[in-house]
């Protein structure tokens, strides 16, 4: 323990690398700061945190000065305050300060609480940052009531050309937080300071758009900016929210804890939760950060149940619709009905759906799109009971190297990427097998662009530490063996591992390679795959998940459900084949993202979703369900951690939670065991079933690939809503991705000179003529 005196207060602290600022904050002493941020390394740029230290010359910044035993620190002497005010006065020369020094400020805030929509920010009243502004806080702390110098407006054009957020650098105080978070934390480096001295500004190389500078629109820069310079375009002017609620984003398998701003009972915005809140620790991706409000508030959401009468789909009451569905389900011959759930449902909903199929209707035909990948993971890990290898992402700290196979995780799991970068930045080797975009090109120690079938051979040889590795050069192979030969590894595996001939063997090779203390992170692309698999929504699986071939599991379930059809049934691809042959009478489908191709001949389709899709036109019955911000339930993320979804917004019309609809149908059919009142009841029931998987290979299937219109395997959907089709900004961004992901150049400088000069000459000619 060391001792320090701050403003006469005696404070004990542990000396390990702490700054004066750290110690002051821990003991509740406020020192104003502008460039400092919890997540970033000290920068020492703004000088707002300067202090006086006995025996030290000058005014060292508290944020960069190490706290040492016996130090005597003063934070607010007259001298310091004058200096700080002067620094701030200089800063305010170029910042819209009208409101900060306005005598009417208090009354203005009270009587005109909403922000004024304005093209240009002239002061706090017209600033999207008016509710929480760190710059203003410091100004208030310093007690600045008037300006010492005549202010000038920087006259920089507001940048509005890029998707999702505006940049008004007229408000920028050059604290470099945005640049540092983008460089050091997200590993993207989409922005930088250009020029120097008075001309310094935040910009990109040659002023290209953010789309071309490699920005992922993760929003991290917005979240650290202490001013109103960076703001999401969508939510800029919505004003103060009625409340802020924390819940889970389900648009990928990360399950980010998200702070939703609620106004008029709707989600108006979404921001990452607190820095200490796992699993995402204050970070998100473009989907969660910018797309949720437009997605859940879509005007075309299904608002009431519909029945097809004389060819037209007409709105009806729930009573009528559910009466009809229960009649249909009761009359159907069980083997000829299919049930397709969604990886974006809650685990509870998937469980009740499963129960409705097997126990209510007595049909074993259950599946969901994308089930092959989570099923593969579960079945292969069952071989040696390796489930403990799926760990929390923080375990990345513990491993010695990282390998990624089966997809560019920077694209579809941006928050995982952020965590990986943290290790890479500290020098941990990263091996990338397969796709790599700009970030992975920079981050990877070794990148092997082997695809598809060859992956298997590569992995198996690598696991045996053989240097005969297909698709690699001699040095690469040597490097690979050297890196993976020592210590423990972490494996990031994406669904494209299913492209190898025997995906199971590839996966097991990876598990062996990582070692007993290694870690496996399955990057489920769609969302709650792990939860829906826990509910056992596969024809050869039962809740737990368990295999139908495991007698004890079957017996347990029979007892719990009082019977039901617990045999093997049809999976998605087989259902489609049967449907084509006219051998399927009815389909209950709760995922509009599945392509309806091949299902046209089915006479009766029950479609349940928050969103209309191609299925709406084919359905006999349409049942409106809620989205993840309107329901309660459990989401299991890629770390296999259960996370809670909370109903924080009002669903449109009479939409109901999926599990409520399924439970009601179970009751109407007359089956016991559907009297669940809350999602907690269901979770409790589901928790009784534990993992019990028969060791055995995965039947080879071709149902894993989500249908995509664009030639881009990342085309996010949510229960039938194609997100980029609804959000133009997202489409613009996704379209630009292939252009950005060009392979590294192998030109020599002389070749480059020749090429550029040629292009240049032909361009110059155009100008002259």
């Amino acid at each position, binding site marked *: 323990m060391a001792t320090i005196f701050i403003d006469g207060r005696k404070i004990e602290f542990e000396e390990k690398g702490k700054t004066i600022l750290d110690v002051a904050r821990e003991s509740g002493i406020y020192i104003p700061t502008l460039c400092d941020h919890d997540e970033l390394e000290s*920068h*020492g740029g703004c000088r707002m945190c300067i202090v006086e230290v006995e025996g030290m010359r000058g005014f060292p910044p508290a944020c960069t000065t190490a706290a040492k035993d016996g130090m005597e620190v003063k934070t607010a002497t007259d001298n310091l305050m004058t200096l700080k005010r002067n620094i701030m006065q200089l800063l305010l020369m170029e910042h819209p300060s009208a409101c900060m020094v306005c005598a009417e400020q208090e009354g203005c805030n009270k009587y005109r609480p909403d922000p004024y929509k304005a093209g240009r920010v002239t002061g706090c009243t017209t600033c999207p940052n008016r509710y929480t502004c760190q710059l203003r806080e410091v100004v208030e702390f310093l007690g600045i009531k008037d300006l010492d110098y005549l202010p000038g407006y920087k006259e920089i054009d507001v940048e509005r050309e890029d998707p999702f957020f505006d940049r008004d650098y007229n408000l920028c105080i050059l604290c470099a937080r945005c640049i540092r978070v983008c460089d050091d934390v997200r590993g993207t480096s989409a922005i930088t300071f250009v020029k120097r001295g008075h001309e310094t500004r935040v910009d990109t190389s040659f002023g290209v758009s953010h789309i071309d500078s490699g920005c992922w629109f993760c929003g991290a820069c917005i979240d650290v900016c202490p001013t109103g310079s960076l703001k999401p375009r969508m939510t800029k002017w919505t004003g103060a929210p009625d409340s802020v609620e924390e819940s889970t984003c389900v648009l990928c398998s990360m399950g980010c804890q998200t702070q939703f701003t609620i106004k008029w009972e709707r989600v108006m915005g979404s921001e990452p939760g607190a820095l200490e809140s796992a699993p995402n620790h204050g970070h998100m991706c473009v989907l969660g950060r910018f797309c949720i409000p437009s997605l859940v508030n879509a005007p075309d959401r299904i608002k009431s149940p519909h029945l097809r009468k004389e060819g037209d789909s007409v709105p009806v009451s729930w009573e009528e619709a559910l009466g009809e569905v229960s009649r249909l389900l009761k009359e159907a011959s069980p083997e000829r009905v299919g049930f397709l759930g969604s990886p974006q449902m809650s685990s509870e909903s998937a469980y009740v759906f499963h129960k409705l199929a097997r126990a209510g209707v007595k049909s074993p035909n259950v599946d969901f799109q994308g089930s092959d990948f989570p099923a593969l993971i579960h079945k292969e890990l069952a071989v040696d009971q390796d489930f403990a290898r799926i760990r929390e992402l923080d375990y990345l700290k513990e491993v010695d190297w990282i390998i990624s196979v089966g997809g560019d995780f920077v694209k579809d799991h941006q928050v995982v990427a952020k965590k990986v970068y943290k290790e890479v930045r500290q020098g941990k080797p990263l091996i990338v097998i397969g796709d790599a975009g700009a970030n992975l090109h920079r981050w990877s120690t070794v990148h092997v662009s082997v695809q598809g079938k060859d992956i298997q051979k590569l992995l198996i040889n690598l696991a045996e530490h053989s240097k005969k590795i297909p698709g690699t050069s001699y040095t690469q192979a040597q490097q690979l063996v050297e890196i993976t030969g020592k210590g423990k590894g972490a494996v990031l595996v994406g669904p494209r591992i299913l492209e190898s001939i025997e995906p199971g063997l590839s996966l097991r090779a990876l598990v062996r390679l990582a070692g007993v203390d290694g870690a496996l992170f399955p990057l489920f692309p769609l969302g709650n795959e792990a939860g829906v698999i826990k509910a056992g929504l596969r024809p050869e699986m039962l809740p737990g998940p368990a295999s139908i071939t495991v007698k004890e599991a079957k017996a347990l379930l029979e007892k719990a459900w009082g019977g039901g059809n617990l045999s093997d049934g049809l999976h998605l691809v087989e259902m489609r084949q049967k449907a084509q042959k006219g051998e399927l009478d009815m389909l209950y489908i709760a995922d509009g993202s599945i392509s309806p191709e091949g299902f046209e001949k089915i006479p009766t389709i029950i479609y349940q979703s928050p969103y209309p899709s191609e299925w709406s036109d084919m359905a006999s019955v349409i049942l409106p369900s809620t989205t993840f911000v309107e329901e309660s339930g459990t989401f299991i993320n890629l770390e296999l951690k259960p996370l809670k979804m909370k109903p924080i917004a009002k669903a449109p019309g009479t939409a109901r939670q999926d599990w409520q609809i399924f439970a009601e149908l179970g009751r109407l059919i007359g089956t016991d065991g559907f009297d669940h009142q809350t999602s907690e009841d269901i979770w409790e029931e589901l928790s009784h079933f534990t993992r019990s998987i028969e060791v055995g290979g995965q039947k080879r299937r071709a149902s894993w690939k989500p249908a995509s219109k664009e030639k881009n395997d990342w085309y996010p959907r949510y229960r039938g809503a194609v997100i980029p089709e609804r959000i133009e900004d997202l489409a613009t961004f996704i379209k630009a991705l292939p252009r950005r992901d060009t392979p590294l150049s192998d030109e020599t400088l002389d070749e480059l000179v020749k090429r550029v000069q040629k292009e240049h000459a032909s361009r110059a000619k155009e100008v002259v003529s």
Partner: protein
Amino acid sequence: MSLGLIPNPFMTSESRRESMAEQSAVELQHEVIPRLQEIQEKFGYIPQEAVEWLSSQLKVSSQEIYGVATFYNHFRFNPPGKHEIRVCLGTACHVGGGEKILDTLSERLGIQPGETTADERYSLERVACVGACALAPAVLLDDEVHGRMTQRSLKRLLDKVDRADKKAAKGSDE
């Protein structure tokens, strides 16, 4: 990988040295600058394509390279025009109205300082004292000093260059 170089407008070099902030990748910076110099020698300036190329070579983002490049005054990002005009904005010339001269040139050529006209005939730059303070405000045209510039003498100077160029172009056509 970060270059660890964020030019800091508030910071003196002294406080930078004192700073506890990590400057881990300083070597990389040492690698970037000689490469940029090499590029400038070959092209006469630093084209965007070359920054992208270097980014790919060094596995460093283009923005970081560009940031470093613009921090140092001796890199230029536009091809030098056939005629290089440098306007002095040193103290004497500044007081003597150098800014106005620069604005006029900017307007006439349709470019900002640091840029080159689309036909690549002119490039415009601002410089610090060129050692002709007695002749303030001074303009350098193709390294030749023209002193005591006024709006009128500036116009005359450029008109003359334009005429000469036109004549030369005709001559080469025939």
